[in-house]
């Protein structure tokens, strides 16, 4: 049998994963280093009966995927930092109107136009708090081509399950890197679809949640009465200024993620059992952390790694446990210190915290992490 192994780019794996998850609509405004996601979507969607559209800008493409999703079609857009900023207004709309959708941000060096072709991880906080107001969000960070495929599927599944916008937070290293992958058989992939109404059209209230805090979702055009707005709304979906109703709505959309946090969070740890020092990193930097860990272990230094796969919600419980028994955490990120704020909040002063930061458009090299660790030993 011929091997299924092939060389694939991270951005291509994202599109493969999206299509496997059921994406049938992509709207975007191409931008480096995410452009290949639009290109592959344009090429592949028509072959599976899907639609691709290049919109006039990022805001419109975000609006387009919200509309398509409301009509029942799994939808995605892709961008980089500058476009991610523009999409934020409508990401907030999707969060409040509880419209499932996937937004890919392949991070590049910024702010503003920055270094367009260079990697960065400066959007970690933007992914969480880019749109205004208290809102739910999930953000996933792949660190290999295969994981990009898997997490794109997971992004769709989570967005469908919880009716929430999900950010696939990539970086230029993972987006543009090509590596050997073997994709799973389509039959092995778990696909989750949004919950449909179990009541008649007359009885349907589009924003009446079940016990799991998630309202079943009818599609536009199916005959259910369904009003969607960015204003605070009651269970019918129509606007209201009633403080009690608004309070209940805002708390519910945030709580629906908070209550299911244990099911949502995912992380990977290596060699943490005996580790004195644990490197925390995501995406492309996690690859440097792996090399640094292996090389330091060869020298007898007990290093482990902790890699959040859901950067939002942040996998905090396990980190609290680890903080009780390690000497130091090293947080390596291609920004001036964003994820480290979350780590600091979680570990308090239980362990020493060391920062490795880089914003010059180059990857963090294993040596830079190793030097920092050897300095503090």
């Amino acid at each position, binding site marked *: 049998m011929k*091997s299924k*192994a*092939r*060389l694939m780019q991270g951005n291509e794996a994202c599109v493969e994963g999206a299509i496997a998850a059921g994406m049938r609509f992509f709207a975007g405004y191409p931008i*480096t280093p995410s452009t290949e996601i639009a290109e592959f979507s344009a090429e592949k969607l028509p072959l599976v009966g899907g639609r691709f559209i290049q919109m006039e800008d990022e805001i419109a493409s975000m609006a387009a995927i919200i509309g398509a999703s409301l009509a029942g079609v799994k939808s995605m857009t892709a961008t980089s930092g500058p476009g991610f900023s523009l999409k934020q207004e409508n990401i907030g709309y999707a969060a409040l109107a509880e419209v499932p959708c996937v937004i890919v941000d392949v991070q590049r060096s910024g702010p503003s136009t920055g270094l*367009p*072709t260079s990697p960065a991880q400066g959007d970690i906080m933007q992914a969480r708090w880019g749109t205004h107001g208290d809102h739910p969000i999930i953000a996933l960070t792949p660190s290999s081509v295969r994981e990009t495929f898997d997490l794109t599927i997971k992004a769709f599944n989570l967005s469908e399950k919880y009716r929430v916008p999900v950010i696939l937070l990539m970086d230029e*290293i993972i987006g*543009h*890197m*090509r*590596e*050997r992958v073997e994709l799973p058989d389509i039959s092995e992939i778990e696909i989750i679809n949004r919950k449909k109404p179990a009541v008649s059209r007359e009885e349907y209230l589009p924003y009446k949640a079940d016990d799991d805090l998630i309202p079943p979702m009818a599609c536009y055009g199916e005959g259910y009465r369904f009003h969607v707005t960015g204003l605070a709304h009651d269970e019918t979906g129509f606007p209201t200024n009633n403080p009690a109703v608004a309070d209940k709505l805002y708390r519910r959309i945030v709580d629906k993620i908070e209550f299911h946090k244990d099911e949502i969070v995912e992380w990977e740890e290596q060699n943490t059992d005996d580790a004195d020092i644990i490197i925390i990193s995501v995406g*492309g930097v996690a*690859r*440097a952390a*792996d*090399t640094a860990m*292996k090389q330091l272990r060869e020298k007898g230094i007990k290093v482990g790694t902790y890699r959040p796969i859901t950067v939002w919600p942040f996998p905090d419980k396990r980190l609290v446990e680890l903080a009780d028994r390690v000497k130091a955490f090293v947080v390596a990120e291609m920004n001036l210190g964003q994820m480290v704020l979350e780590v600091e909040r979680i570990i308090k002063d239980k362990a020493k915290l060391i920062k490795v930061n880089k914003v010059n458009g180059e*990857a963090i*090299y*294993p*040596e830079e992490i190793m030097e920092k660790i050897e300095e503090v030993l």
Partner: protein
Amino acid sequence: MGKYEIRLSGSGGQGLITGGIILAEAAILDGKNAVQTQSYGPEARGGASKAEVIISTDKIDFPKVRDCDIFLSLTQKSFDQYGKNVKENGIIIVDESIDTRNENKVIYSLPIIDTAYNVLGKPMVLNIVALGVIAAITNVVSRNALEEAVLNRVPKGTEELNKKALEMGYSIGKNAIK
């Protein structure tokens, strides 16, 4: 040896990123692991461009090349910019037009550009000639796998031309190590 770090450098438009992709695909056909990365400026042509490939029998963690085992350079600018981090026993392959400034390493200075431009008369196959040279000198990928990888990537109707380019690259490389 289990792991090769390879850097292909030149100017934008010489097809070196495609060359890196083909090399990585050949390694996968050989049953190995491979990662390919690149760095380029915002411009579409000119400037110094590099494609990096790591080929290994093991899992590859850090995907960028640090000190290379094999360094190819097709322009003076890229030689000066990217030629510094070559391992002590690394192999350097350059176009004959490059002044290697008496670099104290094993250097193969060969007519790669001349072969593509003047002998074959097709500048577009420059990258394929270079791949043939690299494979002949280093054996980093097998000849069969490389030919299959080239034919999988090149546009229809150019197969014979590319096969010829690969063959010429091979013979230049083979002669150089005689």
